């Protein structure tokens, strides 16, 4: 059976990716649950409250870390799915090229979203 290379994984190392996937999951969970409860417990949310929340320095840091963690999470997760299913065994000889294209598209999107996201958080 053909062995899939790990050259496109985030940490180039399974243990690193394993730990990173879990650490990032906890940070993302904390961030979204925080936002969820903020919205759920703030009736008649105003623009001033909303803008005030995101423009605070500690929230800018929290948002930025959550975004970076989310992007790492996406990278590792999509890599896992692609290297499991877009393989020569399941999809034939063109699978490696196809996976490379998918992987490249995902990484490019991850980088663009990271830049755009940080731009949103730090221009407030």
């Amino acid at each position, binding site marked *: 059976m053909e062995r899939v290379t790990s050259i496109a994984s985030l940490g180039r190392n399974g243990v690193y990716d394993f730990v990173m996937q*879990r650490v990032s*999951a906890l940070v993302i969970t904390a961030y*979204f649950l925080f936002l969820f409860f903020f919205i759920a417990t703030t009736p008649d949310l105003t*623009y001033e409250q909303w803008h005030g929340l995101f423009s605070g320095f500690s929230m800018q840091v929290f948002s930025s870390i959550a975004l970076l963690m989310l992007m790492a999470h996406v990278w590792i997760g999509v890599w896992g799915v692609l290297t499991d299913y877009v393989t020569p065994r399941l999809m034939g000889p063109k699978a490696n090229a196809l996976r490379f294209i998918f992987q490249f598209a995902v990484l490019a999107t991850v980088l663009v*979203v990271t830049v*755009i996201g940080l731009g949103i958080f730090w221009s407030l």
Partner: protein
Amino acid sequence: MKISSVNGRPVNLDINTIDLPITAYVSIAHRLTGIILCAAVLVLLWFLHKSLASAEDFAEVQQMLLSSPVKFLMFLFMAPFWYHLVAGLRHLVMDMGIGESLEGGRLGAKIVVALSVVLIALTGVWLWSV
């Protein structure tokens, strides 16, 4: 069907002909919801950007969120979110050595389905009561 080079017995790797256990469906759904959430992030980031741009944009986003199609879209994002979160927490629990047996795995999968169904239902009630 291929024949194993190790013990000479037939090997079937065709997933379409294998009767999958609940743990497999829970795992596949975990991956599927992850892919859906990738798309959700792009849309939600746009909503966040617009809601923070100005008071007028914020009011526009609020109006959009009250409309049925956008509400439904948010539900389509939040349902996979809860499922993916609960299924991910199961992995953390299993990392601690809990629920790793065959029966434990099946029970954990059932708990994931039950808990996420409850959370998704509550989210639906919350969304359409606002």
